[in-house]
């Protein structure tokens, strides 16, 4: 990892840490949503079944939101332009962002996971560390996705509109409510191209069936490919304009 990547990551972390209200919201928002989700499903077995998919969905949702808005601000306030004139590479900029914001995406993931386990008392199988590693991968995909899609928004209002466009369809098609195999053929086919589908599939296998990371290699591979793809596409959006 280059020192330029670390410099960008360090600055991103410093920026969030110095904004106390944002830090408070980063901590409170997942707690509120996990509470609402938990208490809206009074049936314990039903909650145990739904919790992994809810967790994967919230990781994608929060990761996408925080990164999308942060990177958009970088574009609109002119600081991105300033960095593009400097000696650091486009990939360093995107990777630095990924690294910095991943820390907060992970913080949110851990808050939600441990809140669900210890406060809502959901049952899970499988190794804790393997579950957390997989959640981290989902977080990486979310951060890469947010960075890429921020290139298509001109302001925060437009970025927020990407949630119903990019995130909500994935919620319906990922297997959160209905198994993807029970979806109409066309929708099932579309679901194969959505990262959340593999996030939900993988986390269910880990938490409900007690499988290991080795058993869900396909989901890990596809999610890693999504992350790499979004990362490369995000850096391409920073190219010289003609």
């Amino acid at each position: 990892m280059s020192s330029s990547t670390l410099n960008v990551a360090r600055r991103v972390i410093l920026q969030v840490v110095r904004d106390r209200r944002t830090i408070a919201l980063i901590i409170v928002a997942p707690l509120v949503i996990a509470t609402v989700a938990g208490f809206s499903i009074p049936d314990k077995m039903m909650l145990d079944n739904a919790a992994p998919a809810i967790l994967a969905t919230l990781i994608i949702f929060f990761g996408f939101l925080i990164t999308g808005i942060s990177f958009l601000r970088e574009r609109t306030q002119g600081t991105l332009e300033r960095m593009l004139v400097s000696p650091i590479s486009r990939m360093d900029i995107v990777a630095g962002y990924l690294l910095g914001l991943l820390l907060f995406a992970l913080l949110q993931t851990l808050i939600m996971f441990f809140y669900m386990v210890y406060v809502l008392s959901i049952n899970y199988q499988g190794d804790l560390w393997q579950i957390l590693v997989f959640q981290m991968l989902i977080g990486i995909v979310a951060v890469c996705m947010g960075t890429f899609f921020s290139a298509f928004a001109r302001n925060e209002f437009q970025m927020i509109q990407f949630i119903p466009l990019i995130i909500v369809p994935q919620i319906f098609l990922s297997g959160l409510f209905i198994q993807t195999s029970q979806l109409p053929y066309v929708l099932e086919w579309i679901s194969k191209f959505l990262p959340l589908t593999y996030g939900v599939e993988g986390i269910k296998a880990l938490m409900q069936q007690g499988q290991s990371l080795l058993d869900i290699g396909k989901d890990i591979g596809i999610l890693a490919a999504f992350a790499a793809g979004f990362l490369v596409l995000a850096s391409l959006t920073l190219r010289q304009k003609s």
Partner: protein
Amino acid sequence: MTDAAIAVNNLAFKYGALKVIDDMTMEIESGTSYGLLGPNGAGKTTLIRLMVGLLKPAGGNVLCLGKPPTRSMAKNIGYMPQLPALYSELSVEQNIDFFGRIYGLKDSKKRWERVNEVIKVVDLWEKRKTQIVNLSGGMKQRVSLACAIVHQPSLIFLDEPTVGLDPELRVHFWDYFTDLTKAGHTLIISSHTFDDAAHCQRLAFLRLGRVVAQGTPAELRAATGNKEASLEDAFLYFIKHDEVKENVQ
């Protein structure tokens, strides 16, 4: 290849069908302060963005220190955009330190010495721990200038650097710009005010993406044939000539 700090050769740039820079050619000598003067929409900012490599020319080329403006020579370039372009949550010194880091000032002690030095240059020592969000517009401009010069670049691009500054601060900025050129730095400054233009060693008057006249302020005033002519008169003289030429064509 050329010895000039900047060589612009038949440069062209379009936004859609609109020609923003139209077959522009100019050379800027090292160690001078060169003003780009023109009304809004004349192409000043686009020209600077082409010079620093943010935009790709539709035709012609730009050479900075004899090379195209790529990442390999970015350390030699300082860029102060029109917007303050700062991280509002970070303090004055954190912003400047960040730009020092990404411009390759790796030695922590030396970098902080330089950060403190530029903070003093822009007269913000008392405010060095203050978050940008709590500064006035003029103070933000000063931090923005500090971020552009922290790595001591030989070529410094300043896009409307004195906009929003009070007269005292404007004088302070120009004193510093003069010191920089005396020390051998090349400054390219865009402006639409004649106060700023009078401070530049050389000027280019821009209109509709073209250079309508180039020279020292004295040469441009003398070209009007009126000994009493101000820079404003000279500008209007060349603009009018250009309009007539355009109508004839």
